[in-house]
C-alpha cells in the first residue's frame, strides 16, 4: 500500500506541474538589471504587489534596490486592483507618466494592468515587466502538504480507534455523529463558561467534557455488544442516529461560535514551527503502535478478533476487551470532534457527516480485514494518507464533485483488490504465469 501512496504522490506531482514565480532575490536582481539598462534614472518606476502575496515583499524590495541603483522617482502600490487604479488615476492627474511597471506574476492578471492601453491611452509608452518563472508541482508546495495534513488529522485520529474495533471483528458507525456530539458539547460548555472572554483553561474543560461524553456513549454501546451480543453494526447505527439528533437538539440546529480565543490553538496553531496537529498525530500513532504490538491488552485485541472462543478459553476476558475498544473508538471520535471544532473555530451539529465511511475505508485500504484478527496501526495511517491524497489531488486538478466520488470509490476498491491479490499471492502467480508463457513462446 506504501507503493500505491508513492505512486499517487508522483502522479499528482506530475499532473499539477505549473510555472511558479522565481525565488524573489534572484528575480529582483534580474529586474533591476533590466530596468537600469533600459531606463533613465529619472524615469517614474512603479512597483506593484498583490495584497498578502509574495509579491508584497517583492515589490518593497524591488523598490529599495532600484533606489539604491539611483532611481529617484519610484512609487509602490500594494493591495488590490483598486489601489493600483487609484494610483494610476493620481499619476494621470499630476500629468506625468510611468515609464515602467515592475511586478511579479500574480499582478499581471489584473485587468486594470491588462487593459492599460485602453483605459489610459496617455500611458502608451509604459512597459510592464515581470520576472521569469520555473516549473514546480502545486502538489508539492509546502502550503499544500500542510493542507493535506490538516485534512487528515481528524480522520487519522478516529482511524486509530476504528482499527482496534475492526481488528476485534466489529465495526463502529457512530464515529461521524460522535464528532458532532463532542464538538457541540465542548463548545457549549465553553460558551457557558464565559464564551469569547473565557480564559484558556476553559477550552481544556470543554474538550474534556466533549471527549468524556463520547467515551460514556461508546462504553454503553460496547456494553450492548459485549454483554447482550447485539451486532455492532446495529448498535453503532443506533448510536449514530441518536448522536446526530442529540447534536442538533443541543444547539437547536445552529452553530456555536461564542468560543474562547484559545480554541484554534490545537487545530491551527504551531509549536517550534510544526503544526500542533502533526505533533499530536505523531505521538498518538507511536503510542497506539506500541500498545497494539507490545502490550498484553493489545495482543488480546488481536486474539478476540482471530477467534473469540479460543481467546475466551485461553483466559482472555473477551467482554472487557470489546467494551474497551468501543470506548477507545468513541474517545478518539471525541478527540476528532475537538480538533475539528478547533480547526473551524465553531461547533456545528452537521460536522462529520459520512466520516464513519471514510474512516472505515481508510482502515480497510490500510490492510485491516473486516472479518477481524488482522490489521496494523501504521497501515491505517497509510490508508488515511491514500484517501486524503486522492481527495486533495482531485481538488487541485479541478475535477468535478460528481466525478470525484466515482474516482474515490474506484480507487478504494482498486487499492483493496491490489492488496488482496498481493497478500494471497494471486498477483505474483499471475505475473509468473505471464513470464513463463512469454518464455515458452520465445523458445
Amino acid at each position, binding site marked *: 500500500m506504501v507503493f500505491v501512496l508513492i505512486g499517487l504522490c508522483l502522479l499528482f506531482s506530475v499532473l499539477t506541474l505549473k510555472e511558479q514565480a522565481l525565488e524573489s532575490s534572484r528575480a529582483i536582481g534580474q529586474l533591476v538589471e533590466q530596468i537600469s539598462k533600459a531606463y533613465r534614472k529619472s524615469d517614474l518606476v512603479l512597483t506593484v504587489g498583490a495584497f498578502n502575496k509574495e509579491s508584497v515583499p517583492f515589490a518593497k524590495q524591488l523598490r529599495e534596490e532600484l533606489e539604491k541603483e539611483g532611481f529617484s522617482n519610484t512609487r509602490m502600490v500594494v493591495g488590490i486592483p483598486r489601489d493600483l*487604479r487609484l494610483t494610476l488615476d493620481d499619476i494621470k492627474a499630476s500629468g506625468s507618466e510611468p515609464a515602467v511597471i515592475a511586478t511579479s506574476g500574480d499582478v499581471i492578471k489584473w485587468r486594470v494592468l491588462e487593459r492599460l492601453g485602453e483605459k489610459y491611452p496617455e500611458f502608451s509608452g509604459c512597459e510592464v515587466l515581470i520576472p521569469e518563472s520555473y516549473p514546480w508541482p502545486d502538489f508539492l508546495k509546502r502550503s499544500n502538504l500542510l493542507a493535506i495534513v490538516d485534512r487528515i488529522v481528524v480522520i487519522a485520529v478516529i482511524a486509530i480507534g476504528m482499527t482496534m474495533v475492526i481488528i476485534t471483528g466489529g465495526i463502529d458507525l457512530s464515529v461521524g455523529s460522535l464528532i458532532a456530539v463532542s464538538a457541540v458539547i465542548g463548545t457549549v460548555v465553553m460558551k457557558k463558561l464565559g464564551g469569547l472572554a473565557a480564559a484558556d483553561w476553559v477550552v481544556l474543560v470543554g474538550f474534556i467534557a466533549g471527549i468524556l461524553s463520547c467515551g460514556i456513549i461508546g462504553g454503553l454501546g460496547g456494553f450492548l455488544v459485549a454483554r447482550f451480543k447485539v451486532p455492532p453494526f446495529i448498535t453503532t447505527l443506533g448510536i449514530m442516529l441518536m448522536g446526530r439528533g442529540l447534536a442538533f437538539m443541543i444547539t*437547536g440546529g445552529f452553530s456555536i461560535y461564542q468560543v474562547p480565543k484559545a480554541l484554534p490553538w490545537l487545530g491551527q496553531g504551531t509549536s517550534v514551527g510544526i503544526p500542533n496537529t502533526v505533533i499530536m498525530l505523531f505521538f498518538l500513532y507511536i503510542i497506539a503502535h506500541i500498545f497494539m504490538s507490545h502490550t498484553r491488552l493489545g495482543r488480546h485485541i488481536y486474539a478476540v478478533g482471530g477467534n473469540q472462543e479460543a481467546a475466551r478459553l485461553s483466559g482472555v476476558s473477551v467482554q472487557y476487551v470489546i467494551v474497551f475498544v468501543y470506548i477507545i473508538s468513541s474517545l478518539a471520535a471525541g478527540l476528532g470532534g475537538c480538533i475539528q471544532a478547533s480547526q473551524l473555530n465553531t461547533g456545528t451539529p*452537521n460536522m462529520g457527516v459520512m466520516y464513519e465511511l471514510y474512516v472505515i475505508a481508510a482502515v480497510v485500504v490500510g490492510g485491516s480485514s473486516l472479518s477481524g484478527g488482522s490489521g496494523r496501526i501504521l497501515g491505517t495511517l497509510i490508508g488515511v494518507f491514500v484517501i486524503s491524497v486522492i481527495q486533495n489531488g482531485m481538488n*487541485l486538478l479541478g475535477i468535478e464533485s460528481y466525478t470525484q466520488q466515482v474516482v474515490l470509490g474506484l480507487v478504494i476498491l482498486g487499492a483493496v483488490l491490489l492488496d488482496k491479490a498481493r497478500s494471497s499471492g494471486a498477483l505474483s502467480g499471475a505475473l509468473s504465469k505471464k513470464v513463463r508463457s512469454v518464455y515458452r513462446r520465445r523458445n
Partner: protein
Amino acid sequence: MKQKAGTTKLILCIILLALLSSCTSKPKFKGKIGMTCMDLTNPFFKLIANLMQEEAAKYGYDIVALSGDQDPAKQNNQLSDFVAQSYDAIFLNPVDSKSAGEGVKKAYAAGIPVFTFDVQVTDEEANRLIISHIGSDNYQGGRLAGESMMKVTGDRGKIAIVNLPEVTSCILRVDGFKDYLKEHNSSLQIVTELSGKGNRNDAYAVTTDILQAHPAIVGIFAINDPSALGAYAAVKKANKLNQITLVGFDASPAGKQAVFEKKLYDSPQQFPRKMAKGTVQAFIKYLEGEDLPKNNFIRCAHYYYDDSVSDPGRVKEQW
C-alpha cells in the same frame, strides 16, 4: 495497411482542426476560480455553477465547482485546496455561515479575494475580509410570503410552516414571514413548525403528520418549492385542497409550473441568473480596479398565477 495510414492521417487532421478552432474561438486562458457551494445535487446551485462557468469563460477563466455536501469541514478543506493551488479568486456559498470564516481567513492570508453568494459569512472578522456579497434578500422574500398568506387566508385561521432549520437562508425566510405577520397584527395562528428537510419526500411525510395533528389548518408556508410540492401532495391525498392554500419559495421551474397549475398560491421569486452573473461581474470589476459595494441584495418578487401565464421562463428553464 496503406488504407490504415490514410485513416490515421485523416484523424490527425481532424484533431488538428478541432484544436485550431478551439484556440481561435475561446478567449485566452487566464486562470482558475474555485467555487464551492453547499450542495451541487440541488438544481438551484447546479444552475448557478453552470451560469458562472458560462460567464467566466467569456473572460478566460475556468471555474472549478465543488460541492460542500452540507459538510462544513469538507468545504473548509476545499477552501484550503483552492488556496494551495493559488487560484485567482474564490466564490463561496458557505455550508455554515459561521464556520466558513476560518477558510475565508486562510484565503485572505494567501492574498486570494473571496466573493460570497446566496449565503453570507457571519463571522464578523471574516466578513470584513470578503470583497463583496451577492444574494437574495431572503428575509424580505419571507415577508412577501407572509403578505400572500395573510391575503389568501383572509387573515383568519391556523397555519403551519414546513421549514429547514439547518440552513440560514431558510431561517431568514421564516423570520421574515413571522415578522410580517406580527407587524400587521395578524390573527393567523402558527400551530406548528416542522422540518421538511428541503425535499419533496420528507416534506410529504411531515405534512401528512401535520394534517393528522392539526386537521383544521387553512394554509401552509414551505420554505422552498420542493417542500411546497411535497406538502401539496400530502394535502391532495388528504382531500383538503379546498381548505388549505400553499405558499412556496424560490419560483423554481417546478414551482412556477405549480403556480401556473394553481397548486401554489405564491412562490416568492429568487433570481439565480442575477446571482451567478453578478458574482462573476463583481470579480471582473474587482480586477478592473473599480469600486464595489460590499453587499448586493437582490430583492425577491411575488410570483402569482398572473405572473406565470405570460412567463416564458416557466417552460424553458431547467433547474
